[in-house]
């Protein structure tokens, strides 16, 4: 009964409003930019945040040690002063002396001091916190296999501090670029539950923006931090990050101008936007992430059964010729053309083409050649001896299950194509889609024989986490190679990044030969930007790089700076 009246009342209300609305037209979007997100941030505390979305957002809230840019021409990172005004190396490069700006204040007015920085590094290195970036501190002083904050970090005075490393290496500054968090807020926080600390909901930073509102699964609103001196308060009054999980909706909103910047725009939508939406500028990011099909090099059943002790070659993929055959048999070019077209690039190894100086240009990508694949398979003893269309060896068929994550169209496409391609050479593939959480967990635990995954490379070359020993965090296929291990050691102990070039090139040659996994392609994300949004700096670091310079302007003027 009462609901009915309520509804009628509300309906009348709505109608009244609708009449009123037309008279007072105004542009509520004034000084606000809207960024589309496909998923929510997980945490806004830089110590524990895991997703790249979080990183994009907190970069403008928390102070950054350096102002980092990536020099595309040189293919390397460059460091400019930010919270750190200048730095020098001492003690054969093992010590880094940092000079800290004295005049930076947290949002609540308290000064940012070296104590804050030291405290933050202690958090990053604390195993109880289990920060995803704990490995950054591995080359600083360790005691009992634990990061030793007192030995590693020395505070000289209010503006000077020294970081002690165990060796000189190219990534030192990169590893020193972890954002500090305010000590006075987190001093008494329980380390184990830092992730769920209520203070994470209201981050106190010092960057050009501050958090205004975070409604889970809906939006994150940043407003200008008027007191920021790092480098200065944002030019825009407000930036809204909207979570829109449906791609269709995201695109519609971009076209309607409800969203100013969106990543990624899918290649199939490009021509439509170019034709019908001149107000949207499309930019292509350099290739930073690639997709691959992981073939477990080790026998995962045995590995799991023996408690990760027995390492035997995989019965199917243990043979290098088989892995090569698989790469030959998969029409990578076809998949690439179909899914990404010009917005992708065939991957030779996992060294991103942006690192020009480190790329081994002599390697030729494996072509699509099913005949060659059949030959290689025959050479390694696989033949269809019972004529059922599936290769066999010693009475066992060449069949396996290929895992990929639910809800990722491109992966699903790849999976279906791979199934079809491999069928042509007599390999039977069963597809199984798994929820992302379960998939990544099982990949990391090395439980799958074959899977499709992606990887986003760091901006400083560090192949050790993928091709180091079998326990390296991202060595998902259990690849082991003595020469690669040697080269890694050599490459990571040189003074400057450039010196490592020859070692990296040799590693690429080995990876190309060994095909520990089938490298599919590099993805060049397309970013759609509404032309009214000026001074955007869409680059390999992301779309929100230098977000504080963004401005709203006339969409018709060509000025973009």
């Amino acid at each position: 009964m009462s609901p009915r009246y309520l509804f009628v009342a509300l309906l009348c209300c709505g109608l009244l409003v609708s009449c009123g609305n037309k008279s007072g037209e105004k542009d509520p979007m004034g000084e606000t930019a809207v960024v589309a997100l496909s998923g929510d941030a997980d945490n806004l505390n830089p110590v524990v945040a895991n997703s790249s979305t979080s990183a994009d957002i907190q970069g403008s809230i928390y102070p950054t040690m350096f102002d980092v840019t990536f020099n595309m021409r040189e293919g390397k990172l460059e460091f400019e002063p930010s919270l750190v005004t200048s730095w020098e190396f001492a003690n054969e490069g093992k010590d880094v002396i940092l000079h800290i700006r004295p005049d930076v204040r947290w949002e609540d007015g308290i000064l940012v001091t070296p104590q804050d920085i030291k405290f933050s590094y202690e958090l990053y290195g604390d195993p109880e916190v289990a920060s995803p970036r704990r490995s950054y501190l591995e080359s600083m002083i360790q005691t009992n296999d634990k990061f030793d904050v007192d030995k590693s970090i020395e505070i000289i005075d209010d503006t000077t501090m020294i970081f002690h490393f165990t060796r000189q290496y190219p990534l030192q500054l990169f590893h020193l670029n972890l954002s500090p968090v305010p000590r006075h807020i987190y001093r008494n926080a329980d380390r184990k539950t830092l992730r769920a600390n209520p203070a994470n909901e209201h981050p106190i930073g010092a960057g050009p923006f501050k958090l205004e509102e975070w409604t889970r699964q809906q939006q994150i609103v940043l407003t200008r931090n008027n007191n920021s001196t790092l480098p200065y308060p944002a030019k825009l009054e407000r930036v809204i990050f909207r979570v829109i999980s449906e791609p269709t909706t995201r695109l519609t909103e971009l076209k309607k101008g409800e969203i100013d910047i969106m990543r990624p725009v899918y290649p199939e939508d490009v021509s439509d936007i170019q034709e019908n939406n001149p107000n949207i500028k499309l930019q292509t990011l350099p290739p930073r992430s690639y997709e691959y099909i992981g073939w477990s090099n080790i026998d995962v059943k045995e590995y799991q059964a023996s408690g990760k002790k027995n390492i035997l070659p995989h019965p199917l993929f243990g043979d290098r010729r088989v892995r090569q055959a698989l790469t030959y048999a998969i029409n990578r070019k076809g998949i690439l053309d179909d899914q990404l077209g010009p917005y992708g690039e065939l991957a030779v190894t996992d060294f991103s083409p942006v690192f020009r100086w480190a790329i081994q240009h002599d390697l030729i990508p494996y072509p699509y050649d099913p005949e060659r694949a059949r030959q290689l398979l025959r050479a390694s003893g696989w033949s269809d001896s019972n004529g059922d269309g599936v290769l066999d060896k010693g009475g066992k068929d060449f069949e396996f299950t290929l895992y990929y994550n639910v809800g990722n169209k491109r992966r699903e496409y790849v999976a279906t194509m791979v199934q079809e391609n491999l069928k042509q050479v007599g390999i039977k593939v069963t597809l199984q889609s798994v929820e992302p959480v379960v998939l990544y967990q099982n990949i990391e635990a090395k439980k799958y024989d074959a899977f499709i995954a992606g990887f986003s490379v760091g901006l400083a070359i560090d192949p050790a986490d993928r091709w180091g020993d079998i326990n390296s965090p991202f060595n998902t296929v259990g690849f082991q190679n003595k020469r690669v291990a040697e080269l890694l050691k050599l490459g990571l102990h040189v003074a400057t990044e450039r010196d490592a070039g020859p070692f990296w090139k040799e590693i690429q040659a080995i990876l190309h030969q060994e095909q520990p996994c089938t490298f599919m392609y590099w993805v060049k994300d397309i970013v759609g930007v509404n032309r009214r949004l000026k001074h955007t700096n869409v680059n390999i670091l992301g779309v929100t790089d230098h977000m504080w310079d963004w401005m709203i302007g006339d969409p018709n003027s060509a000025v973009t700076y």
Partner: protein
Amino acid sequence: MLRYISRRVLSAVPLLFGLLTITFFIIRLAPGDPVSLYIQSDVDPQYANNLREALGLADPLPVQYVKWLKGTLTGELGMSFSKHTEVTRILAQTIPNTILLTFFALCFNFILGIIIGIITALKRGSAVDHAVNITSLFVYSMPEFWLGLMLILGVSLHLGILPASGMHAPMAKYLSMPEYVWDVFKHMILPVFVLGVASAAATGRYMRGSLLEVINQDYVRTARAKGLSEFLVIGKHALRNALIPIITLLGLSLPFLLGGAVIVETVFSWPGMGKLTIDAIFSRDYPLIIACTMVSGVMVILGNLVADVLYALVDPRIRYE
């Protein structure tokens, strides 16, 4: 009356308890380690265990169960694994949205259903009756998500009249109150329609039957014989009594609507509990899944309770025993 109500409330308690227990055990039997959401694999297993302990996942299942039960009873629903914050906090942000959606869907369902019922009952056997019946049959047989997609395709993408998804415009927060209401209202039209229309078809059928039954009763005939206008006969005498059994539908349609909300919220990206539940299930966020199930269970049980009480209030023939 009070006794009746308290009895009904009491009988809902074991229901709720059983519901929670089932959910808890089903969830904990699931494969998939939620801690992996938190940390990367290079973290020492020992510290991963610490985390597991901190999250209460290291205890044996019965202990976890007792702890969790205690927490639930004291309103302490725990931390969401995937969203790194308290479950109650997340629920506080999403439940109102779902209630808003289902409430209006319920209203829409009953208004449309009753109108359909009246029309088809009064014009029974006519072309209108048949047309309405066939239409409702088709609507009733439609997958909600498909209807939603078709409406997005037609109304949002092609005509561009209504927003395709979400609950408000990005700047909604800075709108004036009436503008804000209008904005939400616009976003709500499609999801409410999709959610309510299928049940409206069912309500309409029920209403038709109920009205037909009443019309044939003596008092209505008497009213007619007295020479009252048809409008008065139907409006004043028949309709009132025909509406009484409809109240029971209120309780019945709630589980239906909440289940439907899962789909509709997903299709329209409505930031409510249904979408939250799907996200939680995909990320194996145990506390959140359990909390969502609990809330929906409570809503269903409460809905039934309200329906029963209303029914008892309206229909004096019901004994409170």
